[in-house]
């Protein structure tokens, strides 16, 4: 299912594979967009939800390296970590991503950087998990109506029909 608003982030929730893909274009050259992902001081400034602070503990952005950072705000804090599996400058970052309180909930992320010319870049970020339940739970996490309530409502409708 695809939602696409012009000049905005496009999201693809794949029906056949437990992945979420997010596509966004930037009015900046590919080198710059790539560096915003690999330089911890720059990465810290934009990742995470609005109004949250990021504190980087480790950020060894090279093939075989790893990262760990803390995100905090609104009375909450959490640690995130992962491994950098493949880094090709201005082309791709392949890494794992994990919220430490759920150690088994690891995603494999592929972040592709595409030079569109005229100083513009397309970023395609794909997160793959090992079950549809896990994928759906991530999409719905923190929603006012969470995944459990959604399943309950679906169960009710399926039972009634």
């Amino acid at each position: 299912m695809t939602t696409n608003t012009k000049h905005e982030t496009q999201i693809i929730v794949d029906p056949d594979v437990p992945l979420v893909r997010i596509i966004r274009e930037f009015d900046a050259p590919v080198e710059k967009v790539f560096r915003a992902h690999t330089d911890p001081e720059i990465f810290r400034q934009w990742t995470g939800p609005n109004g949250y602070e990021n504190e980087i503990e480790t950020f060894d952005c090279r093939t075989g390296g790893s990262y760990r950072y803390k995100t905090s705000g609104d009375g909450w804090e959490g640690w995130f970590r992962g491994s950098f599996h493949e880094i090709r400058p201005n082309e791709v970052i392949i890494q794992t991503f994990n919220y430490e309180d759920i150690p088994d909930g690891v995603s494999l992320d592929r972040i592709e950087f595409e030079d569109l010319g005229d100083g513009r870049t397309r970023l395609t970020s794909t997160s793959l998990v090992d079950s549809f339940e896990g994928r759906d739970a991530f999409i719905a996490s923190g929603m006012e109506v969470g995944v459990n309530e959604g399943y309950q409502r679906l169960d009710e409708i399926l039972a009634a029909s």
Partner: protein
Amino acid sequence: MELYSTNRLTKVDLRHIFNHMVDNAAARDPLSDVFSALADPTRRDIVARLAVSDATVTELAQPYDVTVQAVSKHLKVLEEAGLITKTKDAQRRPVHLEAEVFDLMTKWIERYRRLAEERYRRLDAVLETMPEYEKEEGK
């Protein structure tokens, strides 16, 4: 990064969800049925039309170059995903969109998308402040 999807994330929320994931590890996944049902353009079109008003199978089949049987098959997929119900009217059996389920899925996906958009708007702002010398450095 994309899995980091909320500004109201709490440990309680995530544990709750994780427990659900474990409980349902072997169960069929209704949400995926919904995504899968909506992956087909004809079924998306049917849903869009049912969002306006209930309709019979014959009415739904009219605009398409396919048989009533083919439309019935699409409706069966939508019904099994919980997106539509056949109302009890014995004669016409009009098809009814379960807007609540459809809205819920749409809201989940839209919120997730919006959080990514917010993050990328911050990245837009950061990119504007970055110096231009990376070109030589990156190549």
